């Protein structure tokens, strides 16, 4: 066999085509075809895709399954919601309350002054920093505690799930400070700009798509760096990596924090796009549902995560509108099918079935394909 050229460039031509197609779908096809209400709905789906991309890096590439990504999505979303809520709770807007100038749910719960930890969220700059920093610090603490002690696999999954449960109970229980089970609702303006109009939502959709591409490119860079290959190596032979002189825990902490940061951006965008944040996006059920987005897309495929998210959520909306009782059957079957029959998800179906046929029609790009499929997990 002739020595093969080893290419690990940041983006092969095949990747580039993939990104271009996705960009065309998000920035041209959807806005052209969808009425504002639907476009806003797709904007909401896109915010989940941030989480799915992080899960591809953590779980697909790094083998770390977090069942608590809703925690980071929620923390990012709540940080943003706190800012918007304070802006919506100006003394003029809340004149009828017994304590004007504080969020309505605080007033309902007989709280008479803004808690100290709400104060900094009067500042947009602080909020934007907090959207990233709060979830990252939180994931860093979890990561250090777990990975330094070499907790991984199912234990990590269960403990992250427990953390999601704890945070949900806490948010619901402390309704005077958090808005409780309803969450933080009735958000109106961002620095005076009304986010509830169709025009605002359409603009937010594009901002959302732009940020998604920034995150996609960061993920692509990580995936194609030596760190990306190290994650795969750690997933398969953790000890060998350790005895090649790497401090494995640091890499896991890093990728877990990165996944947390992605989820947080998604959460903050969710709050803006949809106009509220509630504990129903934090707990066990949403967190594990986010895993299925990445799984359907193909757990190793960054682009697949976006398609998986869009597809599952579109299906969910369509089913829930026409046959609500069928949706859980469908979702349950999806979990089983994607594990049992399609471990590489849409990306796997694409590269195994669709692409070879396309290649026969257009043989020029064949070399690229061989190089980029070399690091796929075989579907056992």
């Amino acid at each position, binding site marked *: *066999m*002739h*020595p*093969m*050229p*080893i290419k*690990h460039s940041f983006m092969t031509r095949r990747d580039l085509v993939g990104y271009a197609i996705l960009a065309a779908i998000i920035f041209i096809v959807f806005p052209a075809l969808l009425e504002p209400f639907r476009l806003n709905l797709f904007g909401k789906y896109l915010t989940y895709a941030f989480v799915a991309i992080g899960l591809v890096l953590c779980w697909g590439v790094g083998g770390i399954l977090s069942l608590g990504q809703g925690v980071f999505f929620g923390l990012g979303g709540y940080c943003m919601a706190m800012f918007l809520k304070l802006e919506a709770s100006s003394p003029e807007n809340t004149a009828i309350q017994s304590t004007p100038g504080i969020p309505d749910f605080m007033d309902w719960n007989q709280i008479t002054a803004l808690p100290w930890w709400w104060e900094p969220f009067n500042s947009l700059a602080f909020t934007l920093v907090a959207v990233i920093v709060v979830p990252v610090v939180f994931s860093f603490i979890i990561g250090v505690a777990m990975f330094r002690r070499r907790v991984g696999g199912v234990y990590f999954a269960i403990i992250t799930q427990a953390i999601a449960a704890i945070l949900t109970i806490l948010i619901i229980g402390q309704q005077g400070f958090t808005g409780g089970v309803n969450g933080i609702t009735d958000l109106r303006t961002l620095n005076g700009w009304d986010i509830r109009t169709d025009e605002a939502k359409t603009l937010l959709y594009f901002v959302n798509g732009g940020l998604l591409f920034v995150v996609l490119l960061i993920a692509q*860079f*990580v995936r194609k*760096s*030596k*760190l990306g*290959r*190290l994650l*795969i*190596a750690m997933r*398969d*032979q953790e*000890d*060998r*990596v*350790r*005895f*090649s*002189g*790497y*401090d*494995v825990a*640091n*890499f896991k902490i*890093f990728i877990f924090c990165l996944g947390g940061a992605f989820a947080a951006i998604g959460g903050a965008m969710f709050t803006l796009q949809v106009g509220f944040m509630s504990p129903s996006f934090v707990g066990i059920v949403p967190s594990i549902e986010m895993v299925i987005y990445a799984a359907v897309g193909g757990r190793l495929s960054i682009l697949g995560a976006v398609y998986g998210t869009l597809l599952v959520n579109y299906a969910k909306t369509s089913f829930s509108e026409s046959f609500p009782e069928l949706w859980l059957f469908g979702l349950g079957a999806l979990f089983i099918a994607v594990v049992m029959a399609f471990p590489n998800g849409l990306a796997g179906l694409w590269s195994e079935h669709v692409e070879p046929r396309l290649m026969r029609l257009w043989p020029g790009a064949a070399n690229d394909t061989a190089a980029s499929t*070399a*690091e*796929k*997990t*075989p579907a056992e």
Partner: protein
Amino acid sequence: MLDYNNKNFVLMVEDLTVSFDGFKAVNDLSFYVEPNECRVIIGPNGAGKTTVLDLICGRTRATSGSITFKGQNLLKMREDQIVHAGVGRKFQTPSVYEDLSVFANLEISYPKGHGVFGALFFRRDAAVRERITEIAEMVFLTEHLGQKAAFLSHGQKQWLEIGMLLIQDPELLMLDEPVAGMSVAERRKTADLLNRIIADRSVIVIEHDMGFVADIATRVTVLHQGQVLSEGSMEHVQNDPKVVEVYLGH
């Protein structure tokens, strides 16, 4: 016995004990490795051979005793720090990264970019490529650089793992049954390879194949029930009545 006090040892293992719930897998063990020595550890199954390597490379924590490598106390160091100090370890079953190419396998072992950000911004420059090509040639894998490691034969995986250690250029190389599962031809090639690579470093080898041991050993240590039963040249241990009894008497 030799006089150990005047020598400049690379590795000093002294009074080493590890117990698992009361069972002493290694019991008050001491031995010393000189520079450029090839030490072979033999012994019946369960003698504690692999455990000794696990202890040296930090995979298992000792209950008591000390392990000193070039004046550093290895017992206080993390696995990756021990590697950076210059200790390389090959596992009994070949452990290579099956989903990565042979090239990437070697690249990961290349001793640069070991921090998170170092790895993130690692550049594959000419020096890296050159070194990987050089090592691949040594371990007979030049033709397979672009191939996924999963598609290598068992023997080739063993070589790849040896290559992954060589690229780190360790001062102490520890090999756990490097020829297990190899064909006769592969064994000969491996013995050849080992004889070349042990020239300028210290090596500890665990091996069962006596012919192979005789080929490479400077000195042999026989372990039995976690203790040194006999130590010396191949000839010396083969004629030691205690060794004969352990191997044949049971």
